[in-house]
């Protein structure tokens, strides 16, 4: 059991993915600043943010369910960390008995969103309720295209649902991004992780302008520190999952280390560019976008995968 706790708390769990996620968050903010012709924050800004939040006063909503409200951020952090463990262990090629298959990863990746929703609803704030309902509708929208792309990956890797086998298959037969179905699947997944991360154009659950951060409006001080940490980790886990699914994972021999890091940075860069060049859409537009267009693309990707393209 000690081994699992080490994976969970130190590497590649809480500590490691928290630090890398913080770095990626800095990268995201720096690029955003550059796109907007600003200077951008210093490298340690995410750490400063986290520590600052820990020392701030924490507000607890008066009319809500206080215990549920306080537990929700912890569970969000748990969801982010456990999915980082299940994604990163195979990605780094660490052979261990502690694994989860793709279905488990899909479900675990939803736990942070679910926890935010429960926390927001427990606060009793109407704006938080609006945010939570949008988050739920967003989950309903992206869940199916995300799953369909994973199915096309499963088909391409000859019915394997284990991440390590999918990576091994790509190492032997070339990365999936090199095929037409892979490219289409990659586009769909990119949109899905945009929504999973709650970034523009799919940030309607937070919608600063209209519902004042919606789903996270009531979190402050320590509780918001935990939410921020979970978001940092998600910003690392989802691109890492994409790297595992489409870019043949990572390799740590010689110059390949650089390539491996660049793959993750490239995905984050794409996510950042999308969020900086698009306006926010309405929730019904987002739902239509995923239900019709993304599903259509994902189905095309599956058909091509069955045809072996």
């Amino acid at each position: 059991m000690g081994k699992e706790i080490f994976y969970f708390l130190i590497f590649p769990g809480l500590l490691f993915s928290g630090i890398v996620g913080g770095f990626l968050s800095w990268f995201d903010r720096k690029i955003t600043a550059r796109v907007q012709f600003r200077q951008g924050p210093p490298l340690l800004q995410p750490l400063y943010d986290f520590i600052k939040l820990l020392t701030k006063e924490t507000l607890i909503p008066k009319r809500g369910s206080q215990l549920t409200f306080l537990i929700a951020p912890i569970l969000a952090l748990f969801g982010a960390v456990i999915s980082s463990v299940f994604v990163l262990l195979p990605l780094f090629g660490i052979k261990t008995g502690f694994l989860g298959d793709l279905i488990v990863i899909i479900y675990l990746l939803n736990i942070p969103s679910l926890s935010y929703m429960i926390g927001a609803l427990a606060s009793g704030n109407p704006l938080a309720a609006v945010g939570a309902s949008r988050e739920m509708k967003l989950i309903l929208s992206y869940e199916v295209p995300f799953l369909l792309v994973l199915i096309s990956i499963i088909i391409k890797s000859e019915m394997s649902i284990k991440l390590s086998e999918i990576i091994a298959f790509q190492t032997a037969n070339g990365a999936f991004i090199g095929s037409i179905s892979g490219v289409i699947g990659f586009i769909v997944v990119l949109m899905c992780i945009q929504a999973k991360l709650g970034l523009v154009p799919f940030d309607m659950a937070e919608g600063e302008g209209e519902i004042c951060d919606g789903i996270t409006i009531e979190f402050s001080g320590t509780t918001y520190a935990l939410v921020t940490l979970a978001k940092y980790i998600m910003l690392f886990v989802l691109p890492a999952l994409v790297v595992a699914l489409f870019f043949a994972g990572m390799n740590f021999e010689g110059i390949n280390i650089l390539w491996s890091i660049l793959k993750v940075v490239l995905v984050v860069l794409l996510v950042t560019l999308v969020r900086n060049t698009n306006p926010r859409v309405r929730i019904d537009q987002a739902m239509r976008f995923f239900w019709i267009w993304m599903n259509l693309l994902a189905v095309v990707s599956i058909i091509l995968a069955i045809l072996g393209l």
Partner: protein
Amino acid sequence: MINLQYLIFLPIGIGIVLFLIPEFLKQVKGVVNLLISIFTLYTSILVFKMSSGIINIECFKFPSISKYLIFNVDSLSKLIVLFIGIFGFLFALYSLSYITKEKAITGYYSYYLITLGSAFGAVFSDNLILFIIFWGILGLTLYMLIKGFDEESSSAAKKTFILIGASDSILILGIGILWKITGSMNMSEVHIATTGTLGIIAFLSLLVGSFTKAGAMPFHSWVPDYVKKAPASSSAYLPASLDKLLGIYFLIRICRDIFQLTDWATLMLLIIGSVTIIGAVMMALVQHNYKKLLGYHAVSQVGYMITGIALGSPLGIAAGMFHMINNALYKGGLFLTAGSVEKQTGKENLDELGGLSKMMPLTFFAALIFALSISGIPPFNGFFSKWMIYQGIIDFGNGTGLANKLWIVWLTLAVLGSALTLASFIKLITGIYLGRRNEKLEKVKEVSFLMWLPQIVIAIVCIGFGIFAAKFVIPYLIEPVTGKLNYVGIWQSQSVSILILVSVVVGFLIYLYGNMKNHRVSESFIGGEKLQEETNFSSLDFYQTIKNFKFLSFCYKKAEKKWFDIYEIFKKIILWLNHVFSDAHNGFLPRYVFWYIAGLLILLIILIF
């Protein structure tokens, strides 16, 4: 072998005796009911440990009756009986405090016990005639366990009785055909393929019986109406747990023992399963009444069980069975919590409630566990059985038939159904327990010990079944029925559960280390405005966006007009036929003379040729 008779006939006998005790001695009846259910629980555990075999009971040296009293004690029936025993006990405990004067149904405890005995009987019967007798009694008690106090409840009871009764008569037809084909009335001796006209008709007839009991589409429409009006203990007892156990038990018997599934039968079952999952959960999404919402989920979850069983592989059947047990647990539990909320507040709609988690913490805890379980959130039991079903579907995709080729469709719909379930339970939990506390509900109290204990016990079982599924539950309960299972994926529930505890500890430490001592309790921030009493975003409006999509709003409108309700469809057809035939009886002599002559002519023609 003495256990078996006690298990079946003692509850029925005591139930009949209880009719003689006057109604005002309700508490006495309740205690007798509880004692009998403890006895049957104990006996069902004994039976579970018994060795398997076909048992023929001698009935007072009447060979003509004894030849029908054939009971099949195998791993499947023992498993189902164990859980009937458990639920019988838990709900008897709950009823003791829940069934009060205003809720009283005449003969509630008598029917409760008769149901218990008949359920045991139906599961053990090997002889189909014996089976249909017990099965029929269950339909009757289901009808008696709802109280017709207004028009809506009476019509719900009538609808239930007619649908169950009609399906039972179709079931009898199927049994007759089965006898015609095989010449045997014993389930253990029959095993035929679903080919040939008669075989197909028999298969479909038996399927109708099982589907109506379990509440699968298109025979589901009695479930939501029934649970909306019935007392919560009846809903938890029959439609949520016992009917599911029995209906799915019979489905497994049909698909595994009595018939051999062919490709088209598998395809049909998978289509019905998927349509049930999605159709019912979409209806649940827009309900205002929380009991009705749960009723639609009681339908939707059946879809998963049918999907699992239709796969036909040991993994699929095991997944279907495990989901059946899990569903009976959390759905029964959900109805108990719904009953508790209704009893304490007297409110039936989600928009009249809110913020009860502070006043009813134990009920809230149990309801949250059930909601997370049914939505398939790891590490609870619902996740494990759904995960098994998904694996079963992926494994099924390796086959060559048409149904196998469509594995992507089944998998996608099953996962989508799970997400939609989560959505509607977010609505339910928010509407009742979270959200803004309703000022009028400040004085609501937690339910009594007898009512929260069953809820908490079931919640703990849900957690335990989720965490120890692969290690203890499946090997001990399911694998005796299906044989050793080979999982395709990996899910280490125990390690992950320990990590949840670790993260709660770590989170607590962060709270301690952080500035939590300086926390402040304050009103919600809504953009700097003062929070008004009426400022609210009701959970009823959560999914209005979905309802507004063109295609879906079309479907919802048709559903409101009961286009998808088989009972209403047949009602319309029969009324139309009445109308047609009423033209023949218009009361004028010439019309009747015409019928006489026409009839005579037809007779003449028949006699001549």
